[in-house]
């Protein structure tokens, strides 16, 4: 089969505005959208620019807008999207070139929520004990690959790039609900800020976008609840 692939192109050294370019790409229904992009880059136009690395949905490099939804190009098959495919850069982050965006604002929000274990008690000689139930409590949010599909799907984030965004909250959740962590109060203070968790309007775009199947909106709700019942 042939796929009609439209790609939003932008070369900052030449173009004033992004524009759509159309390519006819031979494809198999089992090909990934990433394979289509590679076909163009390797056969038609070497200047087509995008990030990718693992090509199987674990490194988080190739999140982009595919037929209107944020997905990983390596995790969407042609058979799911059909023979008309439009690929654009993630929304809400500055476009640097073609499908490649500046990720720095995204990682800056991530760093704000203290995304690391905080526990100042001396560690035991062996492991800290944690029950299977305690481990299960934050399992879902450990799956995050920081691809930014959730944050860039959020209408609140589109309107206000200062909003810390779903991905940062997911990574805060991963530690707030880890029984070994003692930094929840600090993180909740950050997330109680006017650009924090209360900006969420529960549109569930983030949950729909997550290529790892994380229940993002539920995690955000759990953080809100932790704030409401703080200190009780």
């Amino acid at each position, binding site marked *: 089969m042939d796929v009609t692939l439209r790609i939003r192109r932008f*070369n*900052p*050294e*030449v173009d004033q505005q992004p524009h759509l370019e159309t390519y006819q790409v031979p494809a198999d229904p*089992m090909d*990934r959208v990433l394979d289509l992009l590679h076909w163009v*880059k*390797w*056969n038609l*136009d*070497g*200047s087509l*620019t*995008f*990030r*990718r*690395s*693992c*090509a*199987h*949905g*674990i*490194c*988080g*490099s190739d999140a982009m807008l595919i037929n209107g939804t944020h997905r990983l190009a390596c*995790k969407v*098959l042609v058979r799911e999207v059909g023979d008309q495919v439009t690929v654009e850069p993630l929304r809400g982050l500055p476009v*640097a*070139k073609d499908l*490649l965006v500046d*990720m720095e604002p995204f*990682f800056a929000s991530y*760093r704000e929520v*203290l*995304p*690391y*274990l905080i526990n100042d008690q001396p*560690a035991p*000689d*062996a*492991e*800290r*004990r*944690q*029950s*299977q139930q*305690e*481990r299960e409590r*934050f*399992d879902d949010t*450990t*799956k*995050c*690959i*920081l691809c930014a599909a959730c944050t860039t799907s959020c209408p609140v984030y589109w309107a206000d790039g200062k909003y810390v965004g779903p991905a940062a909250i997911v990574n805060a959740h991963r*530690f707030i609900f*880890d029984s*070994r*962590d003692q930094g929840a109060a600090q993180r909740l203070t950050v997330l109680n800020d006017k650009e924090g968790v209360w900006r969420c309007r529960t549109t569930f775009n983030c949950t729909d976008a997550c290529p790892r199947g994380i229940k993002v909106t539920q995690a955000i709700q759990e953080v809100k609840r932790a704030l409401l019942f703080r200190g009780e």
Partner: protein
Amino acid sequence: MTEQHTYDVVIVGAGGAGLRAALESSKRARTAVITKLYPTRSHTGAAQGGMCAALANVEEDNWEWHTFDTIKGGDYLVDQDAAEIMCREAIEAVYDLEHMGMPFNRTPDGRIDQRRFGGHTHHHGKGAVRRSCFAADRTGHMILQTLFQQNVKQGTTFFDEFYVLDLLLADDRAAGVVAYELATGELHVFRAKSVVFCTGGFGKMFKITSNAHALTGDGPGVCYRRGVPMEDMEFFQFHPTGLYRLGVLLSEAARGEGGILRNKDGEAFMARYAPTIKDLAPRDMASRAIYTEIREGRGAGPHGDYVYLDVSHLDPSVIDQKLPDITEFARTYLGVEPKKEGVPIQPTAHYAMGGIPTNVHGEVVMDAAATVLPGLYAAGECACVSVHGANRLGTNSLLDIVVFGRRAGVNAAEHAAAVGHAELPDDPAGAVTRMLEELAGHPQGERAAAIRADLQAGMDNKAGVYRTETLLKDMEVELASLRERYGRVWVQDTSRRYNTDLLETVELGFLLDLAETLVVSARARQESRGGHSREDFPARDDRQWLKHTLAHRADGGVKLDYKPVTMTRYQPMERKY
């Protein structure tokens, strides 16, 4: 304009080894981590099954058995002192990670859970042992995240999307590196007292591979061009269970949890090849068994070119809780439901046992006399300590990166504290400037992608699971022709900013260099050992070949040298499972 930076320690690469090194180094010395990817994109994140350590949390175990398994698994080409260190320090390394927040799966009493893995046994091969510590089937992802989180906490300095393209040496010691900034196309000179390479593997010289697109061997390639030999390059691991056609890894954890390899007749064929531990045989043996099944007509599918990994008999809750990712890969990419049917698999190029030669301190050694190049370090898959010998056991890669990443980081920082900066050579970025101008200087011609595709197909067909003199000689000739084509390569993208076309072309150059060292080393080694399997020399030959290969860059090709294997207490025995 070339910007210049000065640090005590520069770490190249931000996967598990680089991040573990950075935690040590940045506490002790002014440290920069230079990485061509954002750190969390590194391929450590794709590791699935676990990290072995003899914690004995669920059954009797000790690190000496782990050492024995590692040496036997490596077909006795392992440096035994290094294996002892790794297996002994494994226990502390796992606790370190746990203390950093690593979310290991737990036993009912809250300790770190452990499961079986290929080639890991109790009492020196008496039966499989539960030694692998894991976080579902995303252990590598969790290690990468945990180490990155700790670096964020520590405020480590990162240069993201900077490609290191040259190593600077002066007075026979490390002086720094030259890096290309993807965003601007500018070159940066990093002056440093210690340079630590942690750039991972180079599986992209093969077509069917579990490796990420980024794994092009830039670190070893840079070192090789500056006179560092490549050790044991002929030993490349083919993982038995790659997703059919794609090569995406399906962890050995599937077999650790009870999964079975079956041929087209449904026969659990591993019982014929490894009667004692069957499907938990080491990877080299399992990959050869699969190839044999396929060649003898017992492969499945319209072309008879794959076999099945069957987990359909496992409790569905085990699949959901312990193997969620890999079963999802089967659903996503092949449309197969592993709870109901076998998953089509074939061996996939997975792991380089060889690489930059180092001693157990992470110091790079330059020759058979183990002469250290002061200030130069390497750790992880790009390095060869050698703890994996001729065949790495599953889980020992995650262990290798944290144990030797830590050692390299500590030693690099301590070295930096003891010496001053070496003088930079004149025009330090000159060599990179000339290389890039040369590559980008052809107004038309053949794309790097076409040359790379031919390299990958050639390596799959001629330097894969089974090798012969004829095939390897063919590949040597083909490599000469590929290199000649590369001399006329066309880089279409002429822009400065984010020129991934230019960088893919640079990366192909490293792959070509390393493929040549692999093929020349493999052709010379007239025996079969671990991951190197010669049909014309099917037996292991300890009398002539119990030695490491060192491939030096020489005028017009590769010059081979050899060095002895360090033996402590384990004499080579026949390798049966």
